[in-house]
């Protein structure tokens, strides 16, 4: 094909199209960086585009990749259902497509990532254990209706069901945003005050916002805050003890393995259909392992 005819040392350099959920999200940027590293190592060219959280845009980007006749596509899906047509289109064009980080309902050529439901479970289980299965919890959602929000909520609720002593007294969206969630926490402190025993925030940004508000109100000591992603800020906070725990998602593994799998598929080698990279709970005890 035309596009992959860029010659380097006589051999064709394979091209992989990559569409990422959002390059404004630290974790996703980390995954993307790991992919770039791996691609350089393996001598493949990456075309990385940002779907800006829009499934429609993501589909359009995959269509564009197909028109450009790339050799493989790596997609970090925006949505479970809505990003599925992209998978179908790539497969119909006989281009291998690898989902990284999260799933779509359509089955891709391969999947590399973790199950967000699991992260919600891990976080809420930690809260349950810390509180001795009894107490009041508040939950901060991401953007309502987004895949990560839905799945993390699902995992958390599964655990809540197992512990009837845990009461979810309020839940509200903080839109993944630190400032918004800080205001939300401030307002909750006004209305629930000392009744709040624990906060589950669906990502670290919101967790940090909650920590800020609780600290300002002098309540941090008495309230447990847990969030997900293990961004550097959160790891520092866990080390300091202001954030009680976060859930680590392995960006390095997800990025590197996605590219490895893609290259294998391009070369027609056998590759695992599903590579699950497990989440890990990060607490004060094991945080040093995650801090670089």
């Amino acid at each position, binding site marked *: 094909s035309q596009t992959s005819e860029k010659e380097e040392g006589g051999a064709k350099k394979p091209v992989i199209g990559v569409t990422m959920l959002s390059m404004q999200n630290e974790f996703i940027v980390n995954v993307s960086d790991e992919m770039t590293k791996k691609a350089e190592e393996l001598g493949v060219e990456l075309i990385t585009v940002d779907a800006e959280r829009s499934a429609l845009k993501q589909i359009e980007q995959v269509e564009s990749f197909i028109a450009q006749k790339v050799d493989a596509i790596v997609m970090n899906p925006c949505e479970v259902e809505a990003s599925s047509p992209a998978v179908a289109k790539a497969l119909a064009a006989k281009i291998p497509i690898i989902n990284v980080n999260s799933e779509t309902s359509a089955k891709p050529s391969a999947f590399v990532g973790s199950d967000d439901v699991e992260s919600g479970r891990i976080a809420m289980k930690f809260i349950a254990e810390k509180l001795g299965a009894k107490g009041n919890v508040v939950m901060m959602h991401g953007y309502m*209706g*987004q895949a990560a929000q839905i799945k993390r909520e699902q995992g958390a609720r599964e655990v809540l069901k197992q512990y009837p002593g845990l009461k979810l007294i309020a839940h509200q969206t903080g839109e993944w945003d630190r400032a918004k969630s800080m205001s939300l926490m401030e307002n909750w402190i006004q209305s629930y005050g000392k009744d709040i025993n624990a906060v589950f925030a669906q990502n670290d940004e919101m967790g940090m916002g909650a920590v800020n508000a609780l600290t300002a109100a002098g309540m941090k000591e008495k309230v447990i805050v847990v969030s997900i992603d293990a961004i550097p800020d959160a790891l520092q906070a866990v080390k300091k003890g202001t954030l009680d725990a976060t859930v680590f998602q392995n960006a390095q593994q997800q990025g590197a393995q996605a590219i490895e799998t893609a290259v294998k598929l391009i070369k027609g080698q056998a590759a695992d259909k599903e590579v699950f990279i497990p989440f890990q709970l990060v607490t004060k005890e094991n945080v040093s392992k995650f801090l670089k």
Partner: protein
Amino acid sequence: MNKYVTQLKGIGQYGIAIAFVLICLALSLTTSKFLTLSNWTIIITQVSINALLAFGVTFVIITGGIDLSLGSMVAVTGIVASLLAHPDDYPVVVPVLAGLLAGIGMGAFNGTVITKSKVPPFIVTLGTMTIGRGLALILSKGRPVSNLSDAFNFIGGGTVWGIPFPIIVLIIAFAVCSIVLKKTVLGRYIYAVGGNEQAAKASGIRVNKVKMAVYTICGGLAALAGILLTSRINTGQPNAGAGFELDAIAAAIIGGTSTSGGTGTMTGTLIGALLIGVISNGLDLLNVTSYYQQVVMGAIIIGAVVLDSRNQSAAQR
């Protein structure tokens, strides 16, 4: 002589078209992937949703109003349609009509509040934007609505004689909107209301009816966009369409519609929407890093309109 001058002025008026052609030319020279049939099919399909919204808001802006609820209308209509579009539930006309009705209803709500109260359109439609987003979440219980029928998915994904269906919808909508604006009494009154509301009133035009009409039409076109989008991604998304309003308004203004009302054409708006689409496509093709894409996108849009305004004032002199 006179005809020649009119022609020249015509070019000045579509100075943005020149900017558009220049950008296309530049892209064709930089990447061989740009000027291909398959790429243009993709560009136009992609542009169709924004263009539909932009057509609707062009009517509104010409009357001197604004509609910020476009994106939320896309979400609500998409959810309404998708809830009724599961396979074997209803024939495909049911979700389509229901979606259209939802959009028309929301548009009519905007129109009613704007004409009955003296609240500025900015606030009314900002309110509807928030309300609509909430409605979409309530209706869908905050979850994407999937498992839609093949017939419904055809709307956004199918082709007729090789032409993607969204492109066909786009062409028809463009033709109809152009005709309404240029050839009908309503179109005449839309210009009159935006150009000089007092004059329109003094001529016996029922200004409120005209305003009702434009917001309702705008709602209907937003519904069309919402249905296309939902069908294209095979899912009703409660958070679909967020931020679409700005792109649509930008397309209209880039195309020469003035926010102070009274001027604007559908051709201009179409070119505005294409311009945005082409830049976005070109930057992806050139593999510009996403952060720099935004910088370049913003700069090109300003640049294109600067070029346009230069042209216009030159033609006026």
